[in-house]
């Protein structure tokens, strides 16, 4: 590894709105990335909570102007605003109010050494899967997860999403098999599945109930 490295944000690779700072530099101590909204109204940070990772997150508006929503509260956030979300369960997201709005995001779990998310490793399949999912092409979304698992057979996040997309595609056998294995790998998936609307078609299936409790 080199003793130091530098790059301008414009020189770092992007995945959709995501500037992959952590991966670009190989940062190991914390999660750190930036997100861009090209046009006013673009979603920069999709609405999400951090319960799964238990992360506290710090957001800094580097450029432009954003509107954050945290637990339903709207926050006007011009450049140089810091939004610190202490509580992992707080649902947060941000939308651009000005073109080119850029938000730096840093996070980690208090009391634990940082570990990259399995979602990061599987991003390309996740991204294509999400595009199919949003368009209602659930069988194609499931196929993306299968392709990802062929490359990353240990990735439980891909497996959980395969279960979701298979359930939506009305493939209950594949959905239950994938979910069973995901829960074996990480029991937190059972809790997630319990309230995940993607499994609506399986709610009455006793095998699903037995699996998620």
């Amino acid at each position, binding site marked *: *590894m080199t003793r*130091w490295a*530098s790059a301008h944000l414009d020189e770092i690779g992007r995945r959709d709105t995501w500037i992959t700072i952590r991966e670009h530099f190989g940062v*190991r101590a914390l999660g750190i990335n930036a997100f861009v909204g090209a046009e006013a109204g673009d979603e920069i940070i999709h609405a999400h909570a951090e319960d799964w990772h238990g992360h506290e997150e710090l957001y800094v508006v580097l450029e432009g102007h954003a509107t954050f929503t945290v*637990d339903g509260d709207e926050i006007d956030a011009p450049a140089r*605003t810091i939004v610190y979300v*202490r509580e992992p*369960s*707080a649902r947060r997201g941000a939308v651009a109010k000005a073109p080119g709005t850029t938000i730096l995001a840093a996070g980690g779990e208090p009391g634990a050494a*940082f570990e990259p998310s399995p979602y990061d490793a599987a991003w390309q399949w996740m991204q294509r899967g999400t595009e199919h999912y949003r368009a209602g092409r659930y069988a194609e979304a499931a196929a993306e997860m299968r392709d990802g698992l062929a490359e990353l057979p240990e990735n439980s996040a891909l497996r959980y999403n395969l279960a979701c997309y298979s359930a939506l595609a009305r493939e209950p056998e594949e959905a239950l098999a994938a979910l069973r294995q995901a829960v074996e790998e990480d029991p937190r998936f059972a809790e997630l599945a319990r309230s995940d609307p993607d499994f609506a078609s399986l709610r009455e299936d006793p095998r699903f109930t037995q699996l998620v409790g």
Partner: protein
Amino acid sequence: MSAAYEVLSLDELDRVPVAEGLEWRPIRRRLGIRSFGTNAYTSERVGGWVVEEHVEGSGHEELYVVVSGRARFTLDGEELDAPAGTIVFLPENDVTRKAVAEEEGTTVLAFGGWPDRPFEPSQWEWYFEASEHEPERAIEIMREGIAELGERGWLLYELARHEARAGRRDHAREHLTKAVELEPRAAERAGGDEHLRELLP
């Protein structure tokens, strides 16, 4: 605003003058962040420091983000022009690093932590903050640091220094003795300090 989150502007952060025009703008301590270190550094004048010359004695890897203005980094003697939007990453803690402002009001954000173990705050956060206060308030700040991190050599050293400034020589002597036990380099530093040299064990 709820306890779940906080909002503020970089411009509202406290300013703690450090040296050569550098102002430390504490973020981690202000917000109570517990999983990584982060602070801002600004200089209102061209040529002022925005990163003081140092190596990371803590062993942290560090990442700097130039938020506004323009900085000139010197990394192991090599110069780097860093306009706003530049990120500098130092995985090795022993790189000697420094940065000066090339424009007024340059702001640099710093992030740091260990790659393989949980974060804990650095002792210097408390003694940097205490340094700008009168002795009584400085003593309180150092005690807060000890309450959070436990008895550490440099925290006790700075507690002793502020106690000596306040004329509490007995407390200062006791804490300096403990400081030297935990951090032998504190004795050398105390030897050069007008308040502490006579109190050395």
